[in-house]
């Protein structure tokens, strides 16, 4: 596995591997530790991307130290994850807002316009009324948590 690796490469690869693993573990721990869905969105989308980044940097360093070439596969994966993780986070947040949050409990935008995605007269097309009516009415606790 680590044939003829110089000491600095061994140490650096190990450091980045451990760093990335700790970040990934912390991100997943935050997923079960944080109290409500919008804060739960925070932990994995940031920390796990950093964890993947650490592992990919370790892989790049290893390829460079062992073969003497700069590998670009890792950059491709990093680029794809960095491009797509905000989109998935936005979609998951929208699912949470539209299906579970009471609309009148949301803060109003300053211009008086509505939130993007809500139609003017009610919930977005296709949102089932049964899931919407199970949210508590305004005045009670607006957000559901476990």
């Amino acid at each position, binding site marked *: *596995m*680590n044939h003829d*690796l110089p000491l600095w490469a*061994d140490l650096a*690869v*190990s*450091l980045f*591997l*451990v760093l*990335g*693993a*700790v970040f*990934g*573990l912390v*991100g*997943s*721990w935050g*997923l*079960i530790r944080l109290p409500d*869905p919008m804060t*739960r*969105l925070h932990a*994995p989308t940031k920390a*796990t*991307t950093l*964890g*993947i980044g650490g*592992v*990919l940097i370790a*892989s790049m360093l*290893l*390829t460079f130290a062992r073969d003497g070439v700069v*590998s670009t*596969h*890792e950059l*491709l*994966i990093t680029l*794809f*994850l960095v491009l*797509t993780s905000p*989109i*998935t986070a936005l*979609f*998951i*947040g*929208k*699912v*949470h807002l*539209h*299906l*579970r949050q009471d609309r009148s409990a949301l803060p109003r935008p300053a211009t008086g316009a509505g939130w993007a*995605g809500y139609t003017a007269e009610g919930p*977005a*097309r*296709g*949102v*089932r009324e049964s899931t919407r009516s199970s949210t508590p009415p305004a005045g009670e606790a607006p957000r*559901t*948590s*476990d």
Partner: protein
Amino acid sequence: MMVYALGFAAACFGLALLMNLWRLVKGPEASDRILALDTMVVNVIALLILLGIGLGTAVFFEVAMLFALVGFVSTVAYCRFLLRGDIIE
């Protein structure tokens, strides 16, 4: 030393996968379950890259790339299905 770091990293990501599975089973809302699945995909990508480092091949980068693509598309498709009741309108 790298062998120990590889083992530690694999154990960490395996534990992270178990935590995500817990959230997937327990999660009170659909958005939590989608988030847990998305995080599971990311952790599996990390495990695949670790496997590629361990075996010394570059094949697993393509596997990880495919996993990232499929994971992104499935997450967005599930979210759109919940939001609009339809995936391709």
